[in-house]
C-alpha cells in the first residue's frame, strides 16, 4: 500500500470528526430548517455513487478487452462502493423527502435513476458472488450495460414530474452553506478513495493467496 495511505486516512478521519460541527454551524435554510442538513451527507454520497458506477463500468470494459486482472479488481471494489454509497443515498433521501415533500418516495427522474442504478449494481454483486466460474466476465458486461443504461433511465423517467431540487442549487448556496457542503464533499471523496484502495488491496491479497494455493497443490 502506498505511503500516502496512513496520512490520508488520518486526514479523512479528522474531516469526518469535524463534519458534524461544520454542518451544525452552517446557516439554517429558511423554509426547511433542520432537515436541510441531510443535504450535506446525501449529495456527496449520491455524487460518489454515480462516479463509482462510471469507474466500475470503465474498469469492466478495460477488463473485458484487455483481460487485465487489476482492472477487474478495481471494478469489483468500485461496484461494492456503488452499493454502499447508494445505501446512504436511499436512507437519507426518504428521510428528507418525508419532511420536504410529505412523502417517503416519489417517482421522480433522479430518484428513479438512482434506484435503478443501485439495483443494477446489486445485481452486479450477485452475479459476481453466485455466478460461479466466469462470473467476472458476466459482471463486467453487466457493469458496462448498466453504465450505458443511466441516460436512458434518466430520460425515460423525466417525463414523470420532477420534484427533486436541480443540481444547479449548489452554486446558488449561501457562502456559509457552500463552505460546509464542499467540506463534506472533500470528506466523502477522501473516504471513497480510501475504501477503494483498501478493497483493491484485499482483492490483490486474495489473488495472491489463490496463486500460492495453486502453486502448493502442483
Amino acid at each position, binding site marked *: 500500500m502506498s505511503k500516502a495511505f496512513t496520512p490520508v486516512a488520518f486526514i479523512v478521519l479528522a474531516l469526518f470528526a469535524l463534519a458534524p460541527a461544520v454542518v451544525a454551524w452552517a446557516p439554517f435554510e429558511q423554509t426547511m430548517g433542520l432537515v436541510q442538513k441531510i443535504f450535506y451527507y446525501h449529495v456527496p454520497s449520491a455524487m460518489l455513487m454515480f462516479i463509482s458506477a462510471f469507474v466500475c463500468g470503465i474498469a469492466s470494459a478495460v477488463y*473485458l478487452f484487455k483481460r487485465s486482472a487489476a482492472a477487474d479488481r478495481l471494478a469489483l471494489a468500485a461496484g461494492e462502493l456503488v452499493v454502499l454509497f447508494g445505501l446512504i443515498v436511499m436512507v437519507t433521501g426518504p428521510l428528507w423527502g418525508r419532511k420536504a415533500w410529505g412523502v417517503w418516495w416519489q417517482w421522480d427522474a433522479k430518484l428513479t435513476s438512482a434506484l435503478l442504478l443501485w439495483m443494477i449494481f446489486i445485481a452486479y454483486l*450477485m452475479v459476481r458472488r453466485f*455466478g460461479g466460474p*466466469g462470473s467476472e466476465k458476466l459482471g463486467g*458486461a453487466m457493469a458496462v450495460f448498466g453504465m450505458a*443504461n443511466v441516460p436512458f433511465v434518466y430520460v*425515460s423517467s423525466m417525463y414523470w414530474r420532477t420534484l427533486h431540487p436541480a443540481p444547479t442549487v449548489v452554486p446558488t448556496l449561501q457562502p456559509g452553506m457552500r463552505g460546509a457542503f464542499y467540506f463534506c464533499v472533500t470528506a466523502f471523496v477522501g473516504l471513497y478513495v480510501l475504501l477503494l484502495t483498501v478493497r483493491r488491496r484485499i482483492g490483490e491479497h486474495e489473488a495472491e493467496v489463490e496463486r500460492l494455493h495453486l502453486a502448493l497443490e502442483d
Partner: protein
Amino acid sequence: MNDFLRVAWIVMRKDLTVEMRSREILYTTVFFAVSCVLVFAFALVREGQPMEDAAAGILWIAIAFSGTLALGRTFERERHTETLRALMLAPSDRPAIYVGKLLGMLALMAVVEIVLVPLVGLLFHAPFQASPFWLVVLILAGTLGFASVGTIFAAMLVRARSRDVLLPVLLYPITIPVIIAGVRGTTALLQSTPDEPMARFWAALLVFFDVVFVTLSLWTFEPLMTE
C-alpha cells in the same frame, strides 16, 4: 458483410427449424403469456370493468415475462446438446452468431405478441386498432431492445451457475427504460384521441435504446464468449 449476413441467416434458420420441429418453446411461451394476462385479468378486473390504463402495462409485462422464459429456454437447448461450443468454433464472425440468435428470438417473440395484443385488447377493452402503425413501431422497437440485451445475457449465462435466477435479475433492471417507454407510448395511443406525438417520442427513445444496446452487444459479444 455479405458473409456476416449469411451466417446470421443460417443461425436463425437453424434455430427456427429446430423450434418448428418440436414447437416446445413456442407452445410453452404462448401458454405462459396467456396465463400471465389471465392472472392480471383476475387481479385487476372488478365487476366487469378493467382498471383504467392497465392494458398497456399488462401487455408489456406479459411481453417481458414471456420473453425471459423464451430466452432462458433457447440457450438451455444449446447447453443441453453441447452445441454452443460447436457454434462458437464455426469459422465465422462471432457477432454474426449473436445477430442470428437475436433474429430467431425476435421471430419467436413476434408470434407471442400476435397472440397477446388482441387478447389484452379483448380482456381489458383497449382500442389497440386505433393507430396500428405506431403500435407496431413501439412493439417492434421495444421487443428489439428487450431481446438485444436478453440474448447477450442469456448467451453469457449458459455457463454460469444458477442461470435461471440470474437472467431476470440481470435483465429487468437494464430493460426498465424499454418497459417505461413501451408502457407510456402504448398508453398514449389508447387515449380516447390517440396522442401520436407522445407515442412518437417514446418510439424514438426506444429506437435510440436499440441502436446503443445492439452496438454494445455486437462490440462485447466476442470478448464475452471467449473462454
